[in-house]
């Protein structure tokens, strides 16, 4: 059983334009590793050179910002919806 990953517009060049792709893995870290295997290069856009989430990227597992959960170790049970979103928005 796989998870679903929502790809932001600026990364769709890696997925052939697909907005949603399927992924696999027990944690977010594993899902991103598999994603990079499927779409080479996409992982380095989401993670920095130290393997951490980039400062200006938000990742949601279900409705939860993973920074409120266990970060890259957040569990991703089958059927989970994962969203990768640029952090650039907001008000005052």
């Amino acid at each position, binding site marked *: 059983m796989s998870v679903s990953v*929502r790809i*932001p*517009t*600026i990364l*769709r*060049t890696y997925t052939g334009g697909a*907005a949603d792709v399927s992924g696999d893995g027990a944690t977010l870290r594993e899902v991103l590793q598999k994603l990079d295997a499927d779409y080479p290069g996409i992982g380095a*856009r*989401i993670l920095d050179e130290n393997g951490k989430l*980039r*400062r*200006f*990227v*938000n990742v*949601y597992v279900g*409705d939860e*910002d993973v*920074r*409120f959960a266990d970060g890259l170790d957040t569990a991703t049970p089958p059927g989970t919806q994962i*969203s990768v*979103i*640029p*952090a*650039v*928005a*907001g*008000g*005052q």
Partner: protein
Amino acid sequence: MALASTETTATTIDFGPAAALSCRECGARYELGPSFACIECFGPLEIAYDFGAVSREQISAGPTNIWRYRSLLPVPADVADKPNMAPGWTKLVRADRLARELGIRSLHVKDDSGNPTHSFKDRVVAIAVEAARNFGFHTLSCSSTGNLAGAVTAAAARAGLDACVFIPADLEQAKIVMASVYGGKLVGIEGSYDEVNRFCSELIGDPLGDRWGFVNVNLRPYYAEGSKTLAYEIAEQLGWRLPDQIVIPVASGSQLTKIDKGFGELIKLGLVEEKPYRIFGAQAAGCSPVSTAYRAGRDVIQPVKPDTIAKSLAIGNPADGPYVLDIARRTGGAVEDVTDEEIVDAIRLLARTEGIFAETAGGVTVGVLRKLVAEGRLDPDAETVVLNTGDGLKTLDAVAGHARPTAVIRPSLDAFRAAVAG
């Protein structure tokens, strides 16, 4: 109803002195377009300029609104001729009574409640409308904590664009009414502002949001530049001088970042004399991810779930937070927060000393100003400016319990004497 501009625009793209989009993180440059995040590193894109010669005289001869600074903004030279809200040039109020009460020598309140929809948001939206026109968008949209939604629907009405704006469903009633009255669609989302924001970011990548200009997402590089006009106005109104210290509210951190950029540009263009200035950021304790990181000496923001009466500042995951930390530390300022009680108290203090009724965000800045002075962290002898970015009429509930009639009496002198004058 969509406008004629929905079909590919015949007009050429004209952003005046704006030359390119540039990534604030890695410096990658892009053509001017409706992009907001760097493809390389997700960093925020901002406008890079090729400024021509700009003089004080040229600015002073311009209209009494933000378009007097059009040669410093990403807008065409004829921007003032198109239907727009003409925001800005709000009062810089000399606040001697508040200064005396706080024990400081020289204080001004930049009162942005005087804008057309009663908050500073009219400034940023005006720039975004011009970008939407340039890109041929037919619908103006945003995620909003309230003030922005009203500014967007009003500006869209005047410009003849469609509007569809998104807010957390539990906002203050005044903000909901204001955002609705100008027409367009107002959609309440069951969730926090950060969830509204996330929703909008996803909508942008979907066909449903095709040819929509989200002022604070895909038009954000343009939109955010509007906050520079606060810096320009403050300097011009002080007699072409920078203040020594300024206290600015922090939600996403965009406004503070752009005021710093604006001061820097004035120095670089020789419009003001170069001098050090200290920038202080103000948050509500119930949503203080930036002040918390500042105190902890960190440069990474840990998002929070907001719980404060200062709803216009209730952004738990502030995109420009890291830059606020950089600027506060670089200029010798600080980022501080105050409790909801201190916010209400500061609203009343500003009202009774200066006759300015601020919304909760203004209570936050005045409250933080008071705290910084009391703790000796702000120089009481230096020229200080504090921002009020919105109108108290929009957040009546915050003070309603404290602001009541002194008495209700029969229309007789005896009753008045007994209740009040006696």
